[in-house]
């Protein structure tokens, strides 16, 4: 398609401008061979753009930086001496969180060819429509004879190439659906466009009164508009979804005879030995060879408490190593890991849900046969009335097709969905699936996961104010020696209470157990219950032991996700039944349920039981919204009518859900339910509006009173009404 290709470099004015930039920045373009794209979730204004761009350009080795605010990305051209890590560090020093994106996963959205092609056709159709309308107005206001014929001829010269070029998306999809022996929405559309153009051409050469060139082109324009909106919505959702998966560029440190090397996790083989540093995610299934640490399995099982891992412990891909480095022998890698197998199961469940028929599908299914029937009926009846006047009969059946053509219908759904998903995107929700809004509108009960969904999965010390301040001062000093989440939370909590740390010397972290040191000549320890000689309790706790005194417990709650309380309160107010299913221990689940006012909860639920619970609800006729983040939720997410997961969720969970929360706040879910209900109502209203126009116009067309002017007015009025109605969505 020559329309979307680019002219030679010399002919491109923008390239000349680029070289000016580079000289202005005083950089050598010749060496700046590398291109890196980073996601910048934090950019939102003109100030951000210039901070980021100037900050990056000022760095040596960077030739060019350009922020795309719509996609929240920056594209950086730099030379090979600058690594991606240096760029992200540089940006975080500027105050912007930056995440490297996987270029391969992004390539398809970087060049949105289909979008630009549609836009091109839309522009051409618009040009043609306006010019033909100009000529048509002259005809309608009384041009006759030779003048009218000439105007029709000029219209034809503009309309025919336009229809052939701009109508291709409809012709192609109509042909495809005909070959599959279906009557899609595009069949009557294509038929109307082709019939209107050819009958008008015939009338033009025979000096007829009526030519429908304006209608044919207007039809193409409005329908292309709907098609483009539809494409935009899906492209934005797809690019954001791809961005989420491109965020995880999985790397692993492999131990070889020559030493350590960093490789892509995908290249690991069974039998390799990898090192997993504290804070790193386990890339493979494997067995620990050496090292001791604690493992956070919250994403896989929903347990909020880290578990101990020493030699011979089995690790699964997706777990997070917390305290000490571990050397692991790979037992399964890539697509064979338990994580990937789980994701495959989800893919199967997904396809079952794709059978959902949208309102638009249902409308089209009823509409297409009716339109054809009417049109052919009109042809037959007029043939009989006029005693075989083919020209007149075809004229009437073309007018029927043009007037009934689902112009408004083609715009009705995309316009509403675009308005709704734009609104929800600003509220922090990303609609991944086009039908998700309609399914969300039907929801009548909600199932939540606990860890990582209603909670953040980060611990928060309970009742710190009731603890002895002297103890806290020691704890704070000890906690500084560890990056374990409990230690970090304790240190942060103590600081918030205005505690000043004691001086503790000889700090040593014992991976998997805790931290110890010397305070005023006595040994002090902060760590697991067993390590300090205490009996482990029900709750998540870290214990402080000062030599010669009884150990003191510091109990933790899981920090609530922002907006969780507001969301549950809002759902309770709406009378929506809420279920809480968690893989965690009963104590922790009961605590959270009481705090939020959830009465129906279950603890220690296995992944399969979660899915079974949701399936049973769906089977009993309920429309279930599942909100979850972990691997243990993925099957349930896929089984539910509609599902939502936070952006922090595991890749597999995000893939399985229809909607992703882009922010930390969970409260927008209540907003999503409200907007979805409204959007569905708007879609129905739009159907009613276009049906209303047809009820008035079709009888006129059937009796042969329709004129091109009437067709044009009905078409543009109905299209504008449905668009305005969609924009009413608040």
């Amino acid at each position, binding site marked *: 398609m020559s329309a979307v290709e680019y002219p030679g470099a010399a002919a491109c004015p923008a390239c000349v401008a680029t070289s000016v930039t580079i000289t202005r920045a005083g950089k050598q373009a010749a060496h700046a061979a590398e291109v890196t794209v980073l996601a910048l979730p934090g950019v939102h204004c003109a100030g951000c753009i*210039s901070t980021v761009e100037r900050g990056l350009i000022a760095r040596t080795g960077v030739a060019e930086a350009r922020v795309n605010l*719509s996609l929240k990305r920056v594209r950086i051209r730099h030379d090979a001496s600058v690594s991606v890590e240096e760029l992200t560090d540089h940006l975080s020093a500027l105050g912007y969180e930056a995440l490297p994106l996987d270029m391969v996963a992004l390539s398809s959205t970087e060049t949105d060819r289909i979008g630009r092609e549609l836009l091109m056709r839309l*522009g051409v159709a618009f*040009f043609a429509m306006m010019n033909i309308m100009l000529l048509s107005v002259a005809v309608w206001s009384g041009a006759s004879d030779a*003048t009218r014929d000439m105007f029709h001829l000029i219209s034809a010269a503009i309309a025919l190439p336009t229809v052939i070029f701009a109508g291709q998306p409809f012709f192609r999809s109509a042909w495809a659906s005909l070959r599959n022996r279906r009557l899609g929405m595009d069949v009557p559309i294509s038929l109307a466009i082709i019939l209107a153009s050819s009958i008008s051409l015939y009338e033009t050469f025979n000096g007829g009164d009526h030519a429908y060139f304006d209608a044919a082109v207007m039809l193409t324009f409005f329908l292309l508009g709907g098609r483009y909106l539809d494409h935009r919505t899906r492209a934005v959702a797809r690019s954001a979804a791809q961005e989420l998966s491109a965020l995880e560029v999985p790397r692993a440190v492999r131990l070889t005879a020559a030493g350590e090397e960093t490789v892509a996790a995908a290249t690991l083989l069974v039998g390799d030995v990898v090192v997993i540093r504290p804070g790193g995610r386990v890339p493979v299934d494997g067995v620990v060879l050496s090292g001791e640490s604690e493992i956070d399995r919250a994403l896989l099982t929903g347990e909020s408490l880290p578990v101990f891992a020493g030699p011979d412990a089995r690790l699964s891909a997706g777990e997070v190593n917390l305290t000490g480095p571990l050397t692991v022998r790979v037992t399964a890698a890539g697509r064979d890991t338990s994580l990937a197998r789980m994701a495959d199961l989800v893919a199967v469940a997904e396809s079952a849900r794709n059978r959902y028929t949208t309102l638009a599908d249902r409308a089209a299914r009823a509409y297409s046969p009716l339109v054809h029937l009417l049109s052919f009926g009109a042809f037959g009846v007029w043939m009989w009335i006029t005693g075989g006047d083919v020209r007149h009969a075809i004229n009437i059946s073309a007018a029927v097709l043009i007037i009934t053509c689902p112009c408004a219908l083609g715009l009705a759904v995309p316009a509403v969905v675009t308005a709704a998903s734009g609104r929800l995107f600003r509220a922090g929700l990303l609609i991944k699936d086009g039908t998700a809004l309609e399914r969300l509108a039907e929801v009548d009960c909600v199932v939540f996961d606990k860890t990582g969904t209603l909670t953040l999965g980060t611990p928060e010390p309970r009742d710190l104010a009731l603890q002895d301040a002297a103890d806290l001062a020691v704890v704070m000093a000890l906690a500084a020696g560890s990056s374990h989440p409990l230690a970090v939370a304790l240190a942060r909590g103590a600081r918030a209470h205005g505690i000043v740390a004691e001086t503790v010397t000889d700090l040593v972290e014992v991976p998997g157990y805790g931290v110890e040191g010397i305070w005023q000549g006595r040994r002090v320890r902060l760590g697991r219950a067993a390590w300090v000689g205490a009996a482990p309790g029900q709750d998540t706790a870290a214990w402080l032991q000062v030599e010669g005194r009884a150990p003191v417990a510091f109990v933790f709650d899981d920090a609530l996700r922002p907006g969780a309380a507001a969301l549950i309160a809002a759902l309770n107010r709406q009378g929506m039944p809420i279920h809480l299913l968690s893989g965690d221990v009963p104590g922790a689940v009961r605590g959270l349920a009481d705090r939020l006012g959830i009465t129906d909860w279950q603890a220690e639920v296995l992944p399969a039981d979660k899915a079974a619970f949701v399936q049973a609800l769906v089977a009993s006729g309920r429309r279930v919204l599942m909100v979850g983040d972990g691997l243990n939720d993925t099957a349930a997410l896929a089984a539910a009518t509609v599902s939502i997961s936070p952006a922090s969720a595991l890749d597999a969970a995000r893939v399985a859900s229809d909607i992703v929360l882009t922010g930390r706040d969970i409260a927008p879910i209540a907003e999503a339910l409200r907007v979805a209900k409204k959007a569905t109502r708007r879609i129905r209203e739009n159907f009613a509006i276009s049906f209303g126009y047809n009820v008035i116009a079709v009888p006129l067309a059937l009796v042969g009173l329709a004129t091109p002017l009437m067709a044009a007015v009905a078409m543009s009025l109905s299209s504008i009404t449905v668009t305005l109605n969609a924009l009413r969505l608040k």
Partner: protein
Amino acid sequence: MNILAVLIPISLSLGAVGLLAFVWTLRHRQYEDPRGDAARILSDDYDEAPAPKRGTD
């Protein structure tokens, strides 16, 4: 009526100029970042782009 012979070509060619301008903006990817373009007008920096052609990067 002869005036039409002048007016119609003029109206058509003006329309064609508009269409060509649209095609030009499309080819130079001026619809890639509408939010960014709206924000950049507030910044004092000399903005050299329509985003440079990616092929020569």
